């Protein structure tokens, strides 16, 4: 078959995984350009580089793109590529559903971007608060494209969650018990359950918004008896679990990478796995912390404040487990490991500012300021994106058969670390000074111009880091050192497959008698299963 025809019609999980990742990479570039436009407009006070209306569209599309068209698809891509390999299966449970859910998400993204040519992009922010998102205040079609695009993306995500659960439930190699699952697979499983309960809340809210906008219903329009607060509740019942949906697979990646480069099994596998369940469970009881500024009653919000602090505990357990894995290990600082260790630090900063927000009076003081922007970029970029960089360097050799260049990797790493912290650390300070988010410019108050300029310079450095990453991918695809099947001397099943794997993945799946089947193969004298007390 010809190239294009093959890629459009493929149902192979590896090819679909690559399609997801490439799509996400393209949207990452687009979302990155939007970020640069935001930072250019904000580099000095009183600029008019972007008109206010354009600025609203750009920050809305930046957020929507990064969440729904970059993080979600790239996590799905790593999942559909790796999960079957890691459990010793030949494909996902439903290969055609796998293709369908990819194309749903692909065209959801296309639909979202068509809005630019159909009267203007959506401009009500990534959470599209009512009544701003209603027809009376946003009469152009941008919000309709937003809702329809997200409906496609949401449906695709649900389909892939179903596919992951059935695959992990029914297609594990003999011996791959639930307690021996690689942690990335374990977290993908929990994540899929989270998706099944969270995404339908968004889909229902979108149906209601579309009823309002297209059929003249009024769920969210207060002037006609509707309730804007209902939108906030529904959106965040989806939106807060969504935050964990975007970070749990990243936790899984870190849980694979840190042990391999520390030459130690993960510390407290059971705690890492079960704290994931705790996070998933608690994540449904914290959504109101996005709504502390709405007058909902003191007792009501106190409950959610307490829950929001509680959820820091299982997250902290993971940080301790990863740190304890490092202790006493013989650490190899490859680029993947550098990003993984940086993840620990950056994500912890984001986690701490999150706990600060759970304190209601602090939230009241800082809500809608740049402190919020700083906080969620530390968890989403410092957390998820750093883990994704680590994952890219770690699994690229498996996917392509070639190693990524370590020298460019160092440049990639240091530019991203310096640029990221320069961009976002100062935004904590701007937030504390009261600079509001989502406003296209700002007055020249003491310190604001300097800090914003630092932030914009940081963004340029961060952007250079991202470009080095893309150059590294292209250069390594063409000229990278041949990787062999197992370049990192790792332990999970995907490294027993060829690089890149055969269409059917394995000729024979190694016996699974412990959590580290390849360790057992390489060390028949001291296999894990002997230490664990037999198979």
């Amino acid at each position, binding site marked *: 078959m010809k190239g294009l025809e093959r890629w459009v019609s493929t149902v192979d999980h590896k090819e679909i995984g690559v399609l997801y990742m490439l799509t996400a990479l393209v949207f990452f570039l687009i979302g990155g350009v939007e970020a640069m436009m935001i930072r250019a407009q904000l580099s000095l006070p009183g600029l008019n580089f972007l008109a206010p209306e354009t600025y609203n569209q750009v920050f809305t599309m930046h957020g929507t793109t990064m969440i729904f068209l970059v993080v979600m698809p790239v996590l799905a891509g790593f999942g559909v590529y790796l999960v079957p390999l890691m459990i010793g299966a030949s494909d996902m449970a439903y290969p055609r559903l796998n293709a369908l859910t990819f194309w749903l998400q692909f065209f959801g993204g296309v639909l979202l971007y068509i809005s630019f040519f159909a009267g203007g992009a959506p401009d009500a922010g990534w959470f599209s608060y009512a009544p701003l998102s209603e027809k009376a205040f946003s009469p152009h079609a941008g919000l309709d494209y937003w809702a329809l695009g997200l409906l496609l993306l949401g449906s695709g995500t649900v389909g892939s969650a179903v596919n992951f*659960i059935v695959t992990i439930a029914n297609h594990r190699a003999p011996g791959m018990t639930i307690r021996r699952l690689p942690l990335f697979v374990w977290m993908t499983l929990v994540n899929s359950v989270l998706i*099944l309960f969270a995404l*339908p809340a968004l889909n229902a809210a979108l*149906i209601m918004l579309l009823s309002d906008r297209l*059929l*003249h219903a009024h769920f969210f329009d207060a002037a006609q008896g*509707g309730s804007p607060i209902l939108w906030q509740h529904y959106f965040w*019942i989806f939106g807060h679990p969504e935050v964990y949906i975007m970070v749990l697979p990243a936790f899984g990646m870190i849980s694979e990478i840190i042990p391999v480069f520390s030459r130690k099994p993960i510390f407290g596998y059971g705690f890492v796995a079960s704290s994931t369940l705790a996070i998933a469970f608690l994540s449904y009881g914290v959504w109101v912390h996005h709504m502390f500024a709405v007058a909902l009653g003191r007792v009501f919000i106190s409950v959610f404040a307490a829950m929001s602090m509680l959820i820091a505990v299982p997250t902290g357990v993971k940080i301790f487990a990863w740190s304890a894995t490092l202790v006493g290990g013989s650490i190899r600082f490859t680029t993947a490991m550098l990003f993984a260790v940086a993840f620990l630090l950056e994500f912890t900063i984001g986690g701490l500012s999150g706990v600060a927000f759970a304190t209601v009076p602090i939230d009241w003081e800082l809500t809608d300021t740049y402190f919020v922007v700083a906080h969620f970029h530390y968890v989403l970029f410092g957390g998820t994106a750093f883990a994704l960089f680590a994952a890219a360097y770690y699994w690229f050799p498996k996917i392509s058969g070639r190693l990524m260049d370590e020298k460019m990797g160092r440049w990639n790493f240091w530019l991203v670390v310096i640029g990221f912290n320069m961009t976002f650390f100062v935004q904590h300070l701007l937030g504390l000074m009261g600079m509001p988010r989502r406003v296209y410019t700002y007055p020249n108050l003491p310190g604001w111009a300097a800090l914003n300029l630092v932030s914009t310079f940081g963004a340029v450095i961060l952007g250079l880091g991202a470009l080095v990453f893309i150059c590294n991918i292209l250069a390594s695809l063409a000229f990278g050192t041949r990787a062999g099947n197992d370049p990192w001397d790792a332990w999970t099943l995907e490294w027993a497959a060829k690089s890149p794997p055969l269409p059917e993945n394995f000729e024979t799946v190694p016996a699974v008698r412990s959590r580290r089947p390849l360790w057992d193969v390489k060390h028949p004298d001291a296999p894990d299963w002997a230490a664990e007390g037999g198979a």
Partner: protein
Amino acid sequence: MKTRAPLGMLLFLLNEAVFFFMLIGAFVYFRGSALATAARSLNLAGASIYTVCLLASSITMWRGVAAGSRGWLGATLALGAIFLYGQGREYWALFRQNVTIGGDQFGTTFFTLTGIHALHVLTGLLLLLVLLSGAGRRSALDSIALYWYFVDAVWIVIFAVVYLWTFV
């Protein structure tokens, strides 16, 4: 691997259950301001008749799966169609009383909730039609039956919340 398809369908229905929970939640949220219109305009007797048809269709579906018989599946198709016809008549009667989705909160919540449910019934009918017209796989019938039971069960909840609660 006989259980493969129904597990996937069960998980999909779990997502659907949450989806309907949210829509029913919105109906309940606005119930206070919608109650007067609901009591004035809903037709409990008429709705009860087509509700019975839908419930009966679950029994014929169950027989169809158990006996592998096309006749029972055809009966399911017919009963489902009667349900949609009955609901269509009720919609028409409401329109004539000027109760629409753009009217008050009752219209907004009632038509969105029951309309989305009707789309699910219609989807079920189309799936059955495909199965009856071609050689559907056994696992497809199992999945479609699960879906059908679910859509009926959701209607029981909707009927209780929208109709019974209004008149009791």
